[in-house]
């Protein structure tokens, strides 16, 4: 009985002693940390994506609190609102940045850019790029192994198995830039985000000469310079056989889209301009054709509608054929509709 008593007493004394020591040690070595860092961290999205340049949100919060000038710090995920709220809390001037979205600048789908060889190695763009040119004849375009998809923390970029190219969901994309860094071919660019996800951009990064591009890919930029001439805002420059549209100068006038002979300039979220000179009879026919496509498409699939709307030409029959070609990728039903309707319309008119 006594043994038990002594044991309990000894343990109690030891416990109290340890508690006292620990208390003083904790006092002595206490780390003073600004409580605002915790608050700011809570205000940040907590994605820990690294898009700000820090390892995680905590690092960003630390920098936001400690630095006097925070105008060069920006959280791409939280965006302007998040930065404003933090700046207001800290009493500092917030960085202002226009919203951006990741844009895949390659139109070399399986159809337009035929495979010239079969890659049997590690399914990684970085590895393939370190070994050779890729499965197609194009030395610049998307390799299609999805390093960008693996890098995305927001599920905003996905491989489309039909085109073999990654597609960005602009609503999910936070412009953190992880995919831009992951792409060894530098195909992806952060571009200005327009309302309703509209965009006009050159969907090609090939610096090869026109003839070489034509051989490797039917959707490549051949550096002909037609778009540069037609642009009224000086937004387009052609350098090293490649056109580039400056997103800051571009006003989405869409003139360049019609000029491009290979269709390398992509138009998203808008209808193309009517083609002017070639077919005088067409303008009347075109809206009808467009309606036909618009009517039929929703039944098939909403995705198909977008694709059809993107490509749906307002005028020339030649362009309508293109729509018929494009549609199959989206949905077979839409294809039938477009194919059925397209030939009828010009015949009514003529």
């Amino acid at each position: 009985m006594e043994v038990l008593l002594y044991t309990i007493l000894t343990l109690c004394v030891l416990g109290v002693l340890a508690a006292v020591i620990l208390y003083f040690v904790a006092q002595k070595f206490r780390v003073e940390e600004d409580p605002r860092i915790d608050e700011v961290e809570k205000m940040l999205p907590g994605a820990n994506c690294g898009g700000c340049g820090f390892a995680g949100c905590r690092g960003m919060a630390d920098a936001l609190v400690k630095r006097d000038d925070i105008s060069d710090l920006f959280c791409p995920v939280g965006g302007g609102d998040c930065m404003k709220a933090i700046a207001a809390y800290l009493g500092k001037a917030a960085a202002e940045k226009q919203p951006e979205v990741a844009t895949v600048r390659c139109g070399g789908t399986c159809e337009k850019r035929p495979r010239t060889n079969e890659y049997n190695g590690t399914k990684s763009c970085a590895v393939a790029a370190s070994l050779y040119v890729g499965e197609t004849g194009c030395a610049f375009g998307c390799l299609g192994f999805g390093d960008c998809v693996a890098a995305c923390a927001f599920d905003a970029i996905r491989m489309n198995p039909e085109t073999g190219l990654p597609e960005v969901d602009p609503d999910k994309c936070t412009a953190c830039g992880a995919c831009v860094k992951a792409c060894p071919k530098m195909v992806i660019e952060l571009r200005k985000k327009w309302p309703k996800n509209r965009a006009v951009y050159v969907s090609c990064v090939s610096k090869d000469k026109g003839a070489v591009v034509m051989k490797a890919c039917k959707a490549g930029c051949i550096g002909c310079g037609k778009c540069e001439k037609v642009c009224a805002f000086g937004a387009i420059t052609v350098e090293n056989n490649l056109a580039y549209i400056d997103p800051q100068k571009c006003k989405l006038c869409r003139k360049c889209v019609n000029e491009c002979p290979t269709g390398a300039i992509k138009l998203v979220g808008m209808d193309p301009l009517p083609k002017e000179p070639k077919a005088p009879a067409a303008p009347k026919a075109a809206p009808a054709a467009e309606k036909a496509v618009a009517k039929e498409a929703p039944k098939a699939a909403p995705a198909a509608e977008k694709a059809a709307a993107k490509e749906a030409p307002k005028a020339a029959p030649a362009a309508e054929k293109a729509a018929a070609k494009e549609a199959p990728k989206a949905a077979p039903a839409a294809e039938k509709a477009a194919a059925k309707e397209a030939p009828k319309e010009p015949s009514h008119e003529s």
Partner: protein
Amino acid sequence: MKTFPIGGVHPSANKLSCAKPIEVLPLPEAVNIPLAQHIGAPAVAKVAKGDKVLTGQLIAEAGSFMSANIHSPISGTVTAVDMVPNGQGLRQMMITIKREGDEWAEGIDRSDKLVRECSLSAQEIIARIKEAGIVGMGGATFPTHVKLSIPAGKKAECLIINGVECEPYLTSDHRMMLEHGEEMVVGVTILMKAVGVGKAYIGIENNKPDAIAHLSKIAAQYKGIEVVPLKVRYPQGGEKQLIAAVTGRQVPPPPALPIDIGAVVCNASTTFAVYQAVQKRMPLIQRVVTITGKNLREPRNLLTRMGTPVSALIAAAGGLPENAGKVINGGPMMGRAMVNLDSPVTKGCSGITVLSERDARRREASQCIKCAKCVSACPMGLEPYFLSKMTQKKNWDELEARMITSCIECGCCQSTCPAYLPLLDWVRLGKQTVMGRIRARAAAAAPKK
């Protein structure tokens, strides 16, 4: 019998063309000459479109000390200096020449007469080698004059000639040793003089007994040259492995070079090229290329002018077989698969291997079971499974600490892996990235000084 101390594998040799004498490939109608055929800065083109050139004429000059001259392999007209896809389809600056006859530049001795005596000084020898644009012809394409210029404060103790040819299928060095042994040994004496050593070893694996016997007989006539038979083991032809096998000494990890332990290594074909450059003033414009493969009608060893399209070699061997799966520039262990058969033969191309669809296809990879076979196979004492994993995790600091830059990309790890993991794919990527980081760091540190 000697060999290197750690790692290594024993792939089946498949030396199909080892009994085929060297034959001359007919001159190509046009050639593409890449300006970067060597390690270091690309050469600077000295000709422009429309220029007439003669065989052996200098067409591109070394861009810096670490670079090499390039000479025209045929005579004719320059039709372009432009970006052309290489064997891997990547765009590279090349000089395109269309052939008109075969007129040689003056001063080149094309006779077969053996010239033994060399009265030049070491400096003059190195100057002639530099002038001839000679680079390591085993595949690494390190400029030979750079290797022979011993840095101040260091001293060469022995010269090692690499006649190992451990890569399966390839036989170009083997045939060179058999058919040009006399010239090669004279080349060895010239190299000994250039680096100022009295001792030279010729390392040959014992699967080439004819070459060992032939060169031993010739070397006996000269002082200080010894043929060292080596036990067959891949990658014995690696510079560091050969030094370890012959001298028993290990080269410390990078940035140390073989010269730090007093060794200078030169490939057998390079030694012949040195003989030709110094004694005959012949620039490096042709080399022996093995065209081989189990399904080829006629595997051969062909004396080929630089810039000849690979397709011409394949045609000379009876054309591409129906079940061809891969055409490899080099051998199956270290060679690179090609996507463009119109790409040219370059100074470092010792063979073209055609693998069948079945041999070429990689097997489905499964999980690493930590059996450590790759670790015991690695001749550099690295841990390939770990390096590959860390590359996938982008842990570059860890990779640097684990000496990924020592990797010689021999492929032993991948060939020995029972899970068929693509170890070398990842390790190579990791090595490239880490070396890029080291260079960037050096560049950032440089201006401050």
